[in-house]
Structures are given as C-alpha cells and as structure tokens.
C-alpha cells in the first residue's frame, strides 16, 4: 500500500470542498452572491464552482444584499437550496430586513408549510487588519432572532462538516466563517472529508480539571493557547468549542462546567448584550450548585470595532483570559 502525502487544506479550501461536494450531491444547491463566480469570492471560497457547475448554479448577483437574500427566499420557496454569500460581516446588514422579517420566521408563519433551507455564509470577526466595516462580530444579532440556526466552525474539519450539515438543513442557517482562521490548517485530510455531528453539538477540545473555557470560532485557538500557558500557573483548563450558538448545547457545556466548577466565556464580540451574557446565564441557571465562582466573561470592549491599528487592544488575548482565570479563585467579598 502506498501512502501519498496529503497537503493540508486551509479552512477556506475545506469550505470550497464542502460547497463543491454539496453541489455535486444535490442539484438543488445553488451558490449566489457578490463576486462568487468568475472571481471565486473575495476569499476564494467559491473558487472554481462557476466553472464546474455553470453560472446558473454559482451566480454573480447584482450588488444588493437585500436582493440576494430576498431572491434566495423565493428560490427556496420553489424547491432550491440557496447558499448565499455575504461578502463581509457588516455588509450583511442591508439584508437584515429579509433575514429577520422573512427568512427566520417563514416556517413559523406558514405553520410548517414553507420551510426555507437557506444557508447564509458570513465571514465575520476581526484580527485581519481590515478597515472599517470589515471586522464586525454580529453573532448576537443573529442569536437574538428565533428561527435561525447560528453555527461557526473553529477547525478545518468542522468547516467542512458543519457547512455540509448547514446546506442539508431544512432550516435557515447563518454560517459564520471566522475570517482570521481562513488560512489556518490542521490535520484534516482533504482526501477523506469527514462528517460531523448534527448542528447543535459542542465539543470538548481540551480536557482539564481546574476550570472550563467556553468559546467558539476565532477565539478557540486563543483559548487553547491560554490553556497551555495556564499550565505554568498550575491551572489545568478545559476548553469547550461551542460550534453552534443556536441551538445551544447545554448538555456538553454544563457537563464540562460541573466537572471543573469554574467557567470563563470567551469571545471577541462585545460583552454587553453579547453572546457571553446568555451563555453565562444558562450555565448559572443549570450549574449553580456546582459553581465555585461566578461565571466570567472575556469579550471585546463595548465599542464600535476599532481601527485595525488598535484592534490588538480590543481583541481578547491570552493575558486577559489568564487574568480571568486567576479571578476564578473566588472568595466571597465580605
């Protein structure tokens, strides 16, 4: 038997592979958006799809996000499975009307008669030195809208598996792609793409006993790094990757927190009104008697996303996570 060295794929390439495989497997899958055709998308995630499947299945649309998502609604009503690309996080905002008023609630308002199997791909988050409007973390807006699934991969394997799951889902899925991980690689084998569990399952990325870091997307590598660094201080940290924000995997998260009795939620979107508040509340409600300390949050500051030259001060880094971990040696104030 010969073993051929497999070139590791980047997350962007895994996403491309997922789109290609989904299109090949199901002729109703259509990709559409700005620059997704000839150019292959500004991050090249749709590279080659127009050539392989034709422009009717991978379509350069006019430059109009509300139009892109609005027409996708009609296409889905007629039996297609649109996968739309929003070029950057902040450019999805013109499409919010469609997302919130129609996409998220069509199943509900038709009493189940008109489900919309639409996947909305949104590159999100900072850390790539993008200018204004290219670094927003908009997950809280999506999470606050019932009827949407909200998923975000942090590993190359999950990028492939979760996107396949999202496209196959009969419900609309907001698929958040952490842009600063687009070029990351791990041991995922592009020759043998693997499946993942259905949407809604978190995963423990690192087992530990002293405290649990709960995170997702772009913050996962930062948390893993923090966990390594914490060893020096005698802290053995567990790291949970949520993968799916909606539905939320209370079971995995709570089991992890109960094991350690301490938890820090880490994400780069703003703390106030951000996803961490919801997550901390859920943990507290379910694990109160197991907690040795309050659930802490390490998040971006409550600011409009700063200019790139200052973003390193905004993004939660290893030190801020370690500081929070230190604060978990909680003693009730008298």
């Amino acid at each position, binding site marked *: 038997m010969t073993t051929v060295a497999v070139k590791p794929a980047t997350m962007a390439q895994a996403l491309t592979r997922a789109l290609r495989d989904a299109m090949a497997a199901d002729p109703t899958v259509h990709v559409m958006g700005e620059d997704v055709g000839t150019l292959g998308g500004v991050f090249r995630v749709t590279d080659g799809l127009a050539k392989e499947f034709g422009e009717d299945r991978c379509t350069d649309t006019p430059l*109009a996000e509300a139009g892109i998502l609005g027409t996708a609604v009609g296409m889905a009503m007629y039996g297609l499975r649109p996968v739309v690309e929003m070029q950057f996080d902040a450019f999805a905002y013109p499409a919010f009307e469609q997302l919130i008023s129609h996409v998220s609630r069509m199943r509900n308002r038709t009493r189940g008669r008109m489900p919309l199997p639409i996947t909305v791909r949104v590159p999100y988050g900072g850390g790539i030195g993008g200018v204004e409007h290219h670094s927003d973390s908009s997950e809280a807006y999506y999470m606050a809208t019932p009827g949407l699934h909200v998923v975000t991969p942090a590993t190359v394997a999950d990028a492939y598996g979760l996107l396949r799951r999202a496209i196959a889902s009969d419900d609309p899925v907001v698929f958040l792609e952490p842009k600063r991980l687009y070029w990351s690689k791990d041991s995922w084998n592009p020759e043998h793409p693997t499946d993942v569990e259905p949407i809604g399952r978190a995963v423990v990325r690192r087992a530990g006993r002293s405290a649990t870091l709960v995170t997702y997307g772009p913050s996962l590598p930062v948390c893993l790094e923090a966990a390594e660094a914490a060893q020096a201080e005698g802290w053995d940290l567990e790291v949970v990757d949520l993968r799916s924000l909606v539905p939320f995997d209370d079971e995995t998260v709570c089991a992890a927190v109960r094991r350690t009795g301490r938890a820090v939620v880490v994400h780069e979107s703003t703390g106030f009104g951000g996803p961490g508040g919801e997550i901390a509340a859920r943990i507290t409600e379910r694990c109160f008697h197991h907690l040795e300390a309050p659930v802490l949050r390490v998040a971006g500051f409550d600011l409009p996303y*700063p200019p790139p030259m200052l973003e390193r001060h905004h993004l939660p880094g290893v030190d801020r996570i370690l500081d929070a971990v230190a604060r978990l040696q909680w003693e009730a104030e008298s």
Partner: protein
Amino acid sequence: MTVMEQRGAYRPSPPPAWQPRMDPAPLLPDAEPYRVLGTEAAAKADPDLLRRLHAQLVRGRRYNTQATALTKQGRLAVYPSSAGQEACQVAAALALEERDWLFPSYRDTLAVVARGVDPVEALTLLRGDWHSGYDPHAHRVAPLSTPLATQLPHAVGLAHAARLKGDDVVALALVGDGGTSEGDFHEALNFAAVWQAPVVFLVQNNGFAISVPLAKQTAAPSLAHKAVGYGMPGRLVDGNDAAAVHEVLSAAVRHARAGGGPTLVEAVTYRVDAHTNADDATRYRGDAEVAAWRAHDPIELLEAELTARGLIDEAAIAAARQDAEDMAASLRERMNQDPELNPMDLFDHVYAQTTAQLREQRALLQAELDAEQEHHGEQEGGAR
C-alpha cells in the same frame, strides 16, 4: 344573478384619462456620453478652468501611484486606486462651492483631497488608523463611506435640511456602478426627487464592481436612464473628459441650487488598476480592454486639447508634474512616520457621556498598558 350575468346591464366605464405627471423626454439622457475635449464645445471652455483641472489631474494621478506604492511598503492597509477615474474625482470637487458638501465613497480620496482635506488625513482610514481621519465639517466632506450606497440618503437629508434652513447649499454624492444596485440608491433617489432636494448624484461607472461587469449589474440602457423613473434628469458624460464632467456637474449643481431639484449624472470611465491592491484583476478581465481605456487617458486627453490650443506649454506641464512630485514626496515622508495612536482614545468617543462599563474597560486597558510599559522598562534595564 351577478352583474356579469345581467347581459346588457353591465357597462364597464373606461378608465379615467391617464395623464403622465411630466413629459419624460427632457429627463432622458443623451444616447452618447457628452464630450467636450476634441469637439467644438471645447472652444467655449474657460482656459483657466482647463488649466486648473489639468494641474489637479496630474496631482491626482501621482497621488494614486504614491498611495499604491505605500501599500507595498505596508504603510496602508489597503488602497482602492482611482487611476483612470481622476477626471471624475477632480471635477466633482471643482464643481462645488465652498459651502457645498461632498459625500464620497471609499474610492474617492482624490475628490476629498481636491476639496482641501490634508492628503495624509484623507488616507487615515485606509492606513488602519482612525475611521474618519478628517473633520467632516472643516471642508464639508462626509467621512469616506465603505458600505456601498449608504451615504446617498445622508446627502439627500443634508441637502434637504440646508434648504429648510434657507441655505443655498448643494450636496454632491458619489457612488459606483455596483452601488446603484443597492436598495439605498433607490431610496435616496426617490426621496431626493420627491423632496426636490438640492442633490447631485454622480455615478462613476468604471465598468466593474470588484469582478462583476456592468452587464451583470443592470439591464438598463444606461445608469443615467434610472433617473427618469424617479422624475429627475439623467445625464450621461464621458468620465475621462474632465471638461465635460465639470460642465455637466456644474450645470447640475446650478440647477439644484436654483431649486430645480436633483440630477443623476453617469460618468462613463474605467478603473485601470485592480479593485484594490489586494485584488487580482486578471481573473476577470483581459489586457486588451484595459489597453483600450489606457489610450483614452484623462490626462492625455486634456493635455492634447490644451497643447493644441496653445493654452499650455512644456514648461507649464513640467511645473504641474513638479508640483505633483512635491506633493508625493511630502505624502511619502509623512506616511512613513509611524502614526501616534493612543489606545485610550478607543473609549473617548463612543458616547457623549461615557458609561460606567466603558470606564471599567478603560481602566482595564490602562492597567494592561502600564504593565506592558513596566515590562518593557525592565527588559531595557536588564539589557543595559
């Protein structure tokens, strides 16, 4: 028995006579983009104006090459070059009076600079420094807008407010061909026409929205045709002919100032560079097309006219080039200095009155910075 069954009794009345609200003919753009340079119309152009346009074009071209070079040195996060489109940008600024307002999109730094904004401040956003490098009120230039077409309703609102106050201020809003597909474009044009707001919309149709050609953006005969449906005039102009763009824009500005309402101007031009320094234009267009447009260069067109009519000589051209070189040298030098950024500024302009949460976060960052400083101090101390 239904009405339909009462044979003979049913006499459908004819619809009331339909009157179009206005004759659309005067609103329609010409079939061909309007040109001045190289035509009879050039004789009527003011020589001083042509020379001013020329000097600004030469400067603008140099600004584009300099800023593109600065991206290669990592001094700018990104630069969307407007090479080939200088005539639109310069004419946009020169068509306005001082009291008027300009609403630029992210590619319009030249228009911003031609309005008098410091060339370095105009690049602040693109350098990765603060979002709006300049004070919008100082030169009546709104911040560069990155989300496409979203600045257009702002221009309408400002122009409307000025008129309500009795000021004869005009707003000129710039947008690309791609941006005309956005819903905000529609809403802005509609508001402007209904309110008869003193606004001029200039579409720089440079052929592409990143990779997407105009044919995939619109099925309209021209983008200028879109005006008619809103009830405003649409004008089509050769965007590489600085004299023509200036003339058409100036007429639209005068029309607006006089209470005539908005105009939509489409300038047909071409982006000879890639979308930004990060874009690979060979993926979506061929060299022949670019070469054809390079042969219709805005600077060469104007220089040829000025030379043919004896309005400029070699020395004057050399002087314009020298002035552009000086501007570029100063830009280079100032951009090569590291900007001084204070991270604490992050918290100062979120709200007029800061919140308790932000004060806490400010203190956290200050503590981190102090610790960093101390750490550096120790390291330096140890090295000594």
